[in-house]
């Protein structure tokens, strides 16, 4: 097990290094950031001084050497726009995103397990039809559009919720609802599918013959055996939750890492882009390893070797 985790970690670090190198080289080859950051009428001297100060005038290999040296020291340079350490900005925005994604994923998983199980207990019934349609809708909805329509109805028209920003609980309702929509839709389908299989198995018949209550059979006996695929899919979805976070954060003006990254990309702020990539990539790789370990803990038949 320890060997397995170690191998995975080495692979992860290599992958991240490859990614960062790709970003570094492609970024330096596609445009001079000084053109974007200085006013159009800035003189050539100002441009050169600017490039010199930020090291853009040196040969690419020298820049890459400096980049690697800084990488080892976890120094990603100064954000050109914010005039402060890019890593600091990324680490400051990260917990906000983590909280948003964590809460959304927890609610989505819990709701999906309940709705999916109930739908599976009577396939083809009225509840199953409604739940299946709703989950398909959730999985098909363009999240940015749902977010905008939410703002239109609940903030602009009804004035129940704030349009954007962060603060008390009322600021959390819309971002979390929009963010959990797709994972919820996909998870309901997974839970429903595996539960239909589990409920048809002999041990459920035995439990029913013993006269156990329906709720106990569904939520204790069948659910426990259906959890593995649900966890796998939930894990995969958590990584892609970052996708949704970028959208939700930029629509709702949420001060998280997704919005920081979008801003960095739109403003060609290398330092910010690189450090946000590193932070999110590290998190996702760490999470993938945790899910694998969790998998082995939950199902003793699985051995990573």
């Amino acid at each position, binding site marked *: 097990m320890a060997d397995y985790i170690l191998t995975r970690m080495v692979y992860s670090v290599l992958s991240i290094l490859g990614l960062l190198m790709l970003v570094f080289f492609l970024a330096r080859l596609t445009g001079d950031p000084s053109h974007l950051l200085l006013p159009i009428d800035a003189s050539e001297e100002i441009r050169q001084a600017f490039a010199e100060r930020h090291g853009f005038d040196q040969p690419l290999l020298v820049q890459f050497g400096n980049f690697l040296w800084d990488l080892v020291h976890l120094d990603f340079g100064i954000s050109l726009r914010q005039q402060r350490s890019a890593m600091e900005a990324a680490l400051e925005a990260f917990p906000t995103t983590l909280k948003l994604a964590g809460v959304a994923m927890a609610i989505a998983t819990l709701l999906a397990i309940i709705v999916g199980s109930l739908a599976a207990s009577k396939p083809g019934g009225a509840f199953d039809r409604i739940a299946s349609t709703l989950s398909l809708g959730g999985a*098909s909805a*363009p999240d940015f559009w749902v977010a905008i329509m939410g703002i239109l109805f609940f903030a602009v028209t009804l004035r129940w919720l704030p349009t954007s920003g962060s603060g008390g609980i009322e600021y959390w309702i819309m971002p979390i609802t929009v963010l959990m929509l797709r994972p919820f839709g996909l998870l309901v389908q997974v839970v429903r599918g595996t539960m239909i299989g589990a409920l048809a198995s002999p041990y459920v018949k035995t439990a029913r013959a013993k006269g156990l209550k329906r709720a106990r059979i569904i939520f204790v006996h069948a659910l426990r055996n259906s959890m593995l695929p649900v966890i796998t899919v939930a894990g995969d979805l958590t990584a892609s939750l970052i*996708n949704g976070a970028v959208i939700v954060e930029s629509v709702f003006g949420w001060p998280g890492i997704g919005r920081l990254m979008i801003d960095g*990309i*739109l403003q060609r702020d290398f330092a910010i882009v690189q450090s946000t990539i590193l932070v999110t990539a590290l998190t996702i790789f760490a999470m993938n390893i945790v899910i694998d370990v969790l998998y082995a803990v939950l199902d003793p038949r699985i051995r990573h070797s």
Partner: protein
Amino acid sequence: MATPIDALPKAPAEETAPPGLFRLLLRDRFALVGAVFLGLLVIAAVLGPLLIGDLATKLALGQRNLAPGSLEHGIAYVLGADSLGRSLLARLIVGARNTLGIAAAASLLAILIGGTLGLIAGYAGRWIGNLIMRLTDIVMSFPSLLLALVVLFLLGPSIVNLIIVLAITRVPIYLRTTRAEVLEIRERLFVQAARAMGARSTRIVRRHILPVVLPTLVTIATIDFATIILAESALSFLGLGIQPPSFTWGAMVANGRNYLGSAWWLAAWPGLAIMLTTLSLNMLSSWARTIGDPQQRWRLEIAGKRR
């Protein structure tokens, strides 16, 4: 592919042959509505731009942000007009062509790249195969939208780059499927026979392996199409996808966002169009899954008899 259900002894009442695909489609109302909608959409996207002429770009400043629901300015303005007085219906049709076109091109490119690399990874030596799979792991382990954003940031936004980026994020699915199938097929008797008769690797792959793998890839592509549409819309919405004056539905939503308080229809219709399209695609693929699953297929087969 014959499903095991055909081999099972049938109930005495059911003497007729299992219903055909079209009959099965008629029995799932949701899938039927989805199929009809997609059919109309494709017709509108292909033929529509010929009929509407320059309506999608014609400025009419007098009817800026014209409200929907009135026929006063003709049928083209029934869904209202945008901030420059252009017909929203006409723009939706042009947007449909761009949205579907980009998604189709990205799908094709993803099949092409993923299929080719998958064939190589499955058929060629172990070393190259491992290298390809490790690279795939990197692409897969990173959230698709972030990957697309970073690459678009580096390459600059344009339609060609957008298609490439969308394809790259979908390649792993095709690549892994192809490789898995090739690993299995290459051990089959007909491939070994071809090899024993002295056929070259390229010929074996082209004539014996590819025809078996291709249907699987096409099936995945139809399921994956909705994902590509959503990804493209999100990128265009964020301003890193399609660039003006070209537009897709996602870009139309982004544009309408600025007029949310005064003209909700600008953002509402294109988003609704995306939603209906992806929903139809998902309903169809869910129907296809039910048919492909012998444990579920009977639900549709008996559905007509119950009613």
